[in-house]
């Protein structure tokens, strides 16, 4: 009996999270006539909407742009955040203040940070370019990546490093041979977070791109901006746009078992 109750509760929780997303895919298979009758489940599935977004809209270009920008910015963010987070965790660099300043960059309203960047990028010719968005996403993701990695680095006991030092390793080789293997799961989680956020980011992409570097997130907004929203193609594009992030979710849960513990309790 308890088992039955447990599974009923699990199903309720799962439905609450999954049904809305599944419904997007259901909607994307509907023909234009069926779109306005959401309760109709026995409809003839059609790929009309998918054909529409591939042939009529520059969706493929948007996907390519989003991919380039996401991968490049995440690689750079990790290059910046990994050493910095290690430094914060091991040497308490800046006595906690620098870490707080890093976190606080996300407290600044991005809508306003966009104004000076807009003029700056216009002068440097970075508007509507991949490089421009990549730079912005470094700023966008750096604070959380550093904070998350800081927690993971804190989990690694300092004694390991002392032992390595006694064995004659320098700091850099300790970082490479002792720390890096241990930080890998944490770094993987952080990387996936950065990938997902860069992929999903809307505001900067919306304000800083027009045609050349437009990403999928902005492509979606075009539907909403038009006078009559084409729900079918929108659902199709939405379904495709969230597909990579759903894959990311699958990857993430494997690491959860190892403990996303932020370095707090184990010390």
């Amino acid at each position, binding site marked *: 009996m308890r088992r039955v109750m447990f599974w009923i509760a*699990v199903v309720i929780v799962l439905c609450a999270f999954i049904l809305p*997303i599944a419904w997007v895919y259901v909607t994307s298979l509907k023909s234009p006539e069926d779109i*306005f009758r959401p309760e109709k489940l026995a409809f003839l599935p059609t790929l009309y909407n998918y054909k529409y977004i591939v042939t009529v809209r520059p969706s493929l270009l948007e996907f390519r742009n989003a991919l380039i920008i996401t991968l490049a910015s995440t690689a750079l963010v990790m290059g910046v955040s990994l050493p910095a987070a290690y430094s914060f965790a091991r040497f308490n660099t800046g006595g906690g203040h620098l870490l707080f300043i890093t976190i606080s960059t996300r*407290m600044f309203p991005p809508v306003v940070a966009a104004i*000076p960047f807009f003029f700056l990028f216009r002068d440097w010719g970075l508007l509507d370019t991949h490089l421009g968005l990549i730079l912005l996403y470094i700023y966008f993701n750096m604070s959380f990546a550093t904070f998350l990695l800081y927690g993971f680095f804190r989990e690694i006991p300092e004694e390991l490093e002392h032992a390595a030092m006694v064995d004659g390793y320098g700091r850099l080789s300790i970082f490479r041979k002792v720390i890096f293997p241990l930080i890998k799961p944490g770094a993987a989680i952080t990387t996936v977070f950065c990938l997902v956020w860069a992929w999903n980011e809307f505001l900067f992409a919306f304000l800083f791109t027009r045609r050349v570097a437009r990403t999928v997130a902005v492509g979606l907004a075009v539907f909403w901006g038009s006078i009559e929203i084409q729900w079918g193609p*929108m659902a199709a594009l939405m379904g495709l746009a969230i597909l990579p992030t759903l894959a990311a979710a699958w990857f993430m849960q494997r690491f959860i078992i190892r403990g996303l513990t932020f370095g707090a*309790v184990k010390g």
Partner: protein
Amino acid sequence: MLNQGDEARIERLPGEFRERRPAWQVLTSEKYIKWFLVIPLLVVLGVFAFYPLFYCLYMSFHEAILIRPPEFLGLDNYRKILHNRLFWNSVGRSASTVVVCVGIEITLGLGIALFLNREFRGQNIVRGLCLLPLMVSPLAMSLMWKYFLEPQFGIVNVMLSWIGFSQVAFLSESGVALYTIMFMEIWKWLPFSIFVFLAALRGLPKDAFEAARVDGASPWFTFKKLTLPMLKPFMMIVILLRVMWLIRLSDPLFGTTQGGAGTEVLDWYIYRIAFIRFDIGEGTTLALIALLMTIIIGAVLFRQLIKALGAAR
């Protein structure tokens, strides 16, 4: 195996041959490495955090609308904003959004985490599926809900009509719309707190709970005296991050109400002033005031987090 640089470092006294060492070795030496490692971060901070800050500081003392050259105003922008009812209303909306969302996310998230924290068949699949809403982009999420909540043909209203309710304009009726936005936020971010708590519960020391069980402590007592205090640092992490993100809430509004129907939260107000009215002077001033408020709240929460981390050690 020692390489040459390390050998040299060990044999020398600190600072002895400093001039003869190449720059690379100086930077990676014990004394400087901690600053060497944060150089990239400092560069990014310098360009992307301080430049907009100083730009805003400069502009906030000026009247700057569109492309006219800025005119010095002194503190007028600040005075104007602090006496503006619209501004305080938006602050109030942001505050209630933060309180409601964080409160529900923490309690419900902890509840679901406690409930999922056991071994069962297909546990990985269930947990993986629970993560999904977190991965949907905020804009896609808002458009998705807009479609579901559409007054005429939205699935929610269709279902409401089956059980005899009249249509509800979830996203255009003031008084309802803000709660709809809150609901959307909670739906998306509940998995985040579930996962932090799940991970935390897995990391708890088993022996303490074993001891409590042997001593015959009731589940409620164990929860209150053992689980809750041990989870406090994680609670603080969730609260800190979620409060920071919720104050900056604006993405879900793009696809739905666009600030109408009584949903103009703080950041949307700033967006409207800065990008729709294009009043740079007032917009930047608003940004600085918002930043100051956020930093104060953030600093208080950050201190609590550090304290909780210290206590859990």
